[in-house]
């Protein structure tokens, strides 16, 4: 029980199958058929395959894998943008799959926020309104919205752009708005779905530094999705490696680099060694 209290997010035997005949597909996986076989037999795509992991409070947990490995699908389970086909997901020891619509909304408003790969900013609202969005949705007063939003805009270094529209900003600046929006909601957990992947290398490094700097004082639980091992090693306290919706290895960056669990992980590490 004591470990349970420390774990912010706990995922237990989660399966996610896309398609009409998911029950059938689930049975086939149980009989240890591969992803390809299931697709051929039922037309269903296996997104997440029998995945269990736990994420501790206050850590930056990186989920890594190639495109199609199910990492973006997995992270959407944590705030139930996607519901699993089977399995359990606990946040702070509470089973979030039991939430009804209203409880889920409250959960999303208070406890978990998200940063998106292509930013997901509201094009018809100014930077200030975008950053304040999470606060406005949960009914904070105008003054609180403006104050908090202003604070986070300044923190991410966008002072002076409050009245700009998203389309007037560069990619890096837009993602700062996305980050500020998630931070302004002041949730314990922040999900970052390939948040820096669309940015060029220099801006990306800058954003990584900023995230680490912020984390020193904020101690949020951050779930960070990436396909880039360098990024994972740089910012992650722990890294999980996914392949075909399965968890291959979980460990600290050192463990991943020095004791790759299998040849798939090893290939990631080798590629990194080759480029350095």
């Amino acid at each position, binding site marked *: 029980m004591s470990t349970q209290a420390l774990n912010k997010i706990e995922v237990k035997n989660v399966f996610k199958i896309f398609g009409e005949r998911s029950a059938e597909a689930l049975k086939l996986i149980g009989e240890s058929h591969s992803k390809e076989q299931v697709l051929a037999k039922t037309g269903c795509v296996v997104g997440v395959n029998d995945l269990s992991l736990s994420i501790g409070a206050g850590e930056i947990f990186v989920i890594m894998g190639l495109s199609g490995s199910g990492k973006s699908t997995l992270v959407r389970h944590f705030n139930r943008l996607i519901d699993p086909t089977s399995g359990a997901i606990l946040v702070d020891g509470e089973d979030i799959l039991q939430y009804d619509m209203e409880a889920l909304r409250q959960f999303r408003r208070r406890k978990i926020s998200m940063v998106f790969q292509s930013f*997901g900013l509201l*094009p018809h609202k100014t930077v200030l309104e975008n950053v304040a*969005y999470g606060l406005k*949705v949960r009914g904070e007063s105008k003054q609180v919205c403006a104050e908090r939003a202003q604070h986070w805009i300044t923190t991410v270094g966008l002072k002076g752009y409050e009245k700009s529209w998203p389309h007037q900003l560069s990619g890096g600046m837009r993602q700062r708005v996305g980050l500020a929006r998630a931070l302004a909601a002041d949730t314990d957990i922040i*999900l970052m779905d390939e948040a820096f992947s669309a940015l060029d290398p220099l801006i990306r490094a800058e954003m990584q530094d900023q995230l680490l700097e912020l984390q020193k004082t904020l101690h949020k639980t951050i779930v960070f999705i990436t396909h880039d091992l360098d990024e994972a090693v740089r910012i992650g306290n722990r890294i999980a490696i996914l392949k075909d919706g399965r968890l291959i290895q979980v460990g600290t960056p050192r463990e991943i680099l020095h004791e790759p669990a299998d040849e798939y992980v090893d290939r990631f590490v080798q590629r990194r060694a080759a480029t350095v």
Partner: protein
Amino acid sequence: MFPENFTFSIADWVNGWVDALVTNYGDVFRQISDTLLWAIVNLEGLLRATPWWLMLALVGLIAWHATRRVLPTVVIVGLLFLVGAVGLWDKLMQTLALMLVATLISVLIGIPLGILSARSDRLRAVLMPLLDIMQTMPSFVYLIPVLMLFGLGKVPAIFATVIYAAPPLIRLTDLGIRQVDGEVMEAINAFGANRWQQLFGVQLPLALPSIMAGINQTTMMALSMVVIASMIGARGLGEDVLVGIQTLNVGRGLEAGLAIVILAVVIDRITQAYGRARHEVSR
């Protein structure tokens, strides 16, 4: 020849149905008709009682608010002045009243239906063929039953116009909402926005250009019904076109026709300008 024993007709069945509707529910329809007529007559009275210079000033103001440019505003006011100058001001106001009421009803029906159809694929599958029928069915076909139910005059004209003019608005509202970026919807969902906040805070504002294009189309189609409306006794510019045709007075027909075009251009420019969202204007 098509074999005789394969043929059938729904005409008798439909006739019986319409007859029953008229005899059993005639009073209800009369009531609807009277309420609607009251609204149109009052609006028409108001528009015609307004001094012409005040009307021009008002239109100028709206045009300025919509476009924020001097030249279109001046051209719009000038064109309307021209219509007055050829002696069609009164008829212009009558047509405008008819069109405004038809557009208002179309908006009241069209936008909610468009929103619902964007929500539900099933409703959309039912609705779209219906809209196709409404737009392609020759208007005279439904004018006859509408006449039987509501009598001659402005009210059946309004109904015929709404049937013809509402479909593009429904379609474009549906399209506009469906085209809202998926990641934006995912983002506001992730921040816990409820349906109401999603609809009024994000979907409708982002669909606004498309919805305004729909309203624009609706007004244009309403105007194209003006001549047909005059055939069943609605007053206005269409009447002059009709008289022009009947008396071979090409000149008079052309004048009224051009006045309809001018009204169309004016409304088109104003609604289109409102369709461009503010953040795009500043671009």
